[in-house]
């Protein structure tokens, strides 16, 4: 090597060194993210198993009556307008107590941003006594001791499709977040200042993105959502630079790709979507990332052929180092009801038929519960949820299931959307995360029961685009419940009715189950479903979390009315 080259390389290294050293030291070690949930909350589900089960138990069935408010901050607001302060006529921006640095970014003009109370969604991180939480267009650092905002990163949204946020992620001293107009940003955790940003999908092609940039080791997994008939993918980025490490498409994109035979043709497969918009779970032993894919497009209608449309509405096991798929299980083959399988898979090592196995459990939007061997994809259990689930079997809870040899559900095609209308169950559940308690052996998930009529609006012989259908306006509601499912049998052990609510669940070693019931943030006995505690703070906007703050177990809840921290009264 020439001297000049050596000198140049040395200078380049020294120039990069501060960033490199800064990034690699302190903050959240990615190795800690792979550990079981403990004193912190380091990822969307708390840990990478997806269990949302905390081993903390000072708040338990015996002490829960003493759970009270530590603090509430009801004045944190979103940014809006060109400077984030909002139109003066609307009273400007509150920002909450202790408003510190406001960082304004984004490619829009601020007119597509919505002024109002911050309604945090998805996973909120708790690391080193700091909470990192997000709304659609805003990321916040919050002091966990009193709820004060430490910094606020405001993103001027370009517009387009808008859904909910799934929350931020953290790698060492970096905070990552995906904005809906397809930018992933990397922020300095201490200051909120931007380190890098990257557009992960073309806004011109009407992509939108909402998923957590999920940290697994030195990979940041990102992927867009979309409602156009367009390709969908999962991509791994370098956490320090945003450089692409690998890309995995969720449907066939080239001649010879596996699964192409399940589509009408290559063009249909390329436009078949299968977006992944909810974080999956990760098994560090096998390096498998298990995640769900969305429904095929066009969603309700024709144009995809009669095949299964792989790998949409699937549970996929992907090697996170290579981006190669190891196995798949399709939870809604040839979906025709907009039933994404983007629910959180839960990983656990449990006894099954007398042998401890590495399992993955998943309840999906079409109202079915599955247990598989997560190493091999071997099917173990399929069971039906819902009181009026009729899309693949007769109505009722005990009707015979229509399954194929792999245990995959086979729909009744006459329950597809039709011009004259088809009576079919609505979504039995959605993306709101379930929880699994190893102590009770029960998998807990929300269940919604209603019937609707699905209509085909666009019987175009060429196949339709996008929607192509609609539902009857109201439907008939048969109630919302928490279901507790025995993973060994797939049977619902108990079902507790809620007045309303579907935000996701948390279970603890204290024998408790937390979620909201209408206007209440509430707790139940995880074994029996007996209500044991509640407080009326309004409907939650994100599932509750628990961790240790200054040596005490605390519980964090975000409601539409504010952010609340609970602890045991002295």
């Amino acid at each position, binding site marked *: 090597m020439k001297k000049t080259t050596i000198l140049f390389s040395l200078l380049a290294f020294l120039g990069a060194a501060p960033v490199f050293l800064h990034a690699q030291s302190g903050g959240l070690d990615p190795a800690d993210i792979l550990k079981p949930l403990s004193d912190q909350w380091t990822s969307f589900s708390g840990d990478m198993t997806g269990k949302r089960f905390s081993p903390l138990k000072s708040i338990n069935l015996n002490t829960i009556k003493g759970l009270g408010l530590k603090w509430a901050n009801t004045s944190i607001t979103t940014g809006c307008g060109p400077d984030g302060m909002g139109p003066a006529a609307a009273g400007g921006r509150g920002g909450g107590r202790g408003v510190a640095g406001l960082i304004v970014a984004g490619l829009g003009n601020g*007119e597509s941003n919505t002024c109002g109370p911050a309604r945090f969604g998805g996973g909120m991180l708790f690391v080193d006594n700091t909470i990192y939480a997000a709304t659609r267009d805003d990321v916040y650092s919050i002091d966990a001791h009193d709820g004060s905002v430490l910094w606020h990163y405001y993103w001027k949204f370009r517009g387009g499709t808008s859904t909910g946020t799934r929350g931020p992620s953290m790698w060492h001293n970096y905070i990552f977040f995906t904005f809906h107009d397809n930018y992933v940003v990397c922020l300095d955790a201490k200051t909120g200042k931007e380190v890098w940003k990257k557009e992960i999908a073309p806004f011109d092609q009407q992509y939108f993105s909402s998923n957590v940039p999920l940290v697994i080791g030195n990979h940041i997994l990102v992927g867009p959502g979309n409602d156009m008939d367009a390709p969908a993918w999962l991509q791994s980025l370098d956490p320090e630079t945003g450089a692409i490490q690998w890309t995995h498409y969720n449907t066939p994109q080239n001649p010879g790709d596996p699964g192409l035979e399940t589509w009408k043709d290559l063009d249909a497969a390329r436009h078949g979507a299968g977006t992944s918009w909810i974080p999956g779970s990760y098994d560090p032993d096998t390096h498998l990332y298990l995640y769900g894919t969305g429904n095929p497009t066009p969603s309700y209608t024709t144009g995809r052929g009669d095949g299964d449309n792989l790998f949409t509405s699937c549970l996929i096991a992907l090697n996170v180092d290579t981006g190669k798929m190891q196995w798949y299980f399709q939870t809604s083959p040839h979906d025709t009801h907009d039933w994404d399988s983007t629910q959180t898979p839960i990983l656990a090592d449990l006894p099954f038929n007398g042998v401890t196995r590495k399992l993955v459990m998943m309840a999906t939007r079409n109202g079915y519960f599955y247990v598989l061997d997560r190493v091999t994809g071997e099917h173990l259990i399929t069971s039906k949820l819902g009181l009026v689930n009729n899309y693949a079997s007769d109505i009722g809870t005990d009707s015979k299931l229509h399954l194929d040899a792999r245990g995959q559900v086979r729909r009744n095609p006459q329950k597809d959307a039709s*011009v004259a209308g088809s009576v079919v169950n609505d979504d039995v559940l959605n993306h709101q995360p379930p929880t699994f308690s190893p102590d009770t052996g029960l998998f807990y998930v929300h269940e919604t029961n209603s019937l609707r009529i699905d*209509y085909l609006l666009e019987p*175009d012989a*060429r196949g339709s685009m996008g929607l192509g259908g609609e539902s009857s*306006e109201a439907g008939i509601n048969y109630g919302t419940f928490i279901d507790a499912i025995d993973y060994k049998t797939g049977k619902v052990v108990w079902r507790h009715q809620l*007045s309303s609510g579907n935000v996701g669940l948390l279970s603890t070693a204290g024998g408790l189950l937390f979620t909201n019931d209408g206007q209440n943030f*509430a707790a139940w006995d995880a074994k029996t479903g007996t209500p044991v505690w*509640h407080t009326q703070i309004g409907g939650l906007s994100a599932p509750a979390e628990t961790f240790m703050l200054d040596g005490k177990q605390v519980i964090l809840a975000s409601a539409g009315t504010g952010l609340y921290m609970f602890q045991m009264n002295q």
Partner: protein
Amino acid sequence: MPKKRSYRMAHGPCREGYIIEGYIMIRKKYLIAALFAGTVIAALSYAQGTPTPVPDPVPIAPGKGVRDNGFTQYTRPLASQDVLIRGKALYNSSCRSCHSADIRGVPGKGNSLLRSGVVLSDKAGELIADSLAKHNPKINLVEADNLAISEYLHSIEATAGPQGSPPGRNPMGIELNVLVGDAKAGEAYFLKACASCHSPIGDMKGIASKYADAKALQNGWFDGIVPGAGRGGGGRGGMQATVTMPNGTTFEGRSIRKDDYIVILMLADGTRKSIPLDVTPAPKVDMKDPQEAHKKMAIAIDDPDNKNLHDITAFLWTLK
């Protein structure tokens, strides 16, 4: 985030609630003009028995996008009428036979341009020109023609609906007929399953005339919603509750709220009564759902091929 139910149908995370940013900010007069033009073309085509793909979207507002914000296609300034008319003529002569009038493609001949990444990402004809230069069969156009075609395609993209919907909700203008059932079979089923609560010559007399069309009637009777009367008929709505206190006192009224911890009633005299349930001994609450019979009916009529649904609708449609 509230949204119209019809948009709830989309795939993806929409079930949580979609807002199509800027959708409500569409310049209505332009949109109406475009949709009207499309509807007229559709109606004419259908009336003539030629269900050719329609509409040819009409250029709307040169110099402005169709929406104030949102995806690029909606905010992109449209070209002048001259350019768009020229682009349309060029498209019709050079592209339409394989990509169809509505740019959604012709099976076996040409792909859909409406969902084409090339068209969507094109800024000013550069990507479309590049694609045309490689086109097979060869299409030789001068730069101005490429630009005119691209501007015309962008004007169509601008009228596309939300969540991947093509321009218009029924661009083919196909009649969507829900009256496919057997009215006589529906009458027989109605008399067997519904007559204990409803009568064709009583409360259901003239029921069909209360709805805008047969589809609205089907949705209405299935959901149990009568226009102007609300769910459950008679405008009563809501659960009825009887609360028996430990001392034997009872309260009856419409349940405003009921969870594990409280029941709130609106009593017959218009007063509100809140009763805690997390006390010992707890009051006893009996809830009566005015839709209970209707809910059972909806389960009972479910059959694998939806025949009962269609038959009942066909029968009720005769009650005008």
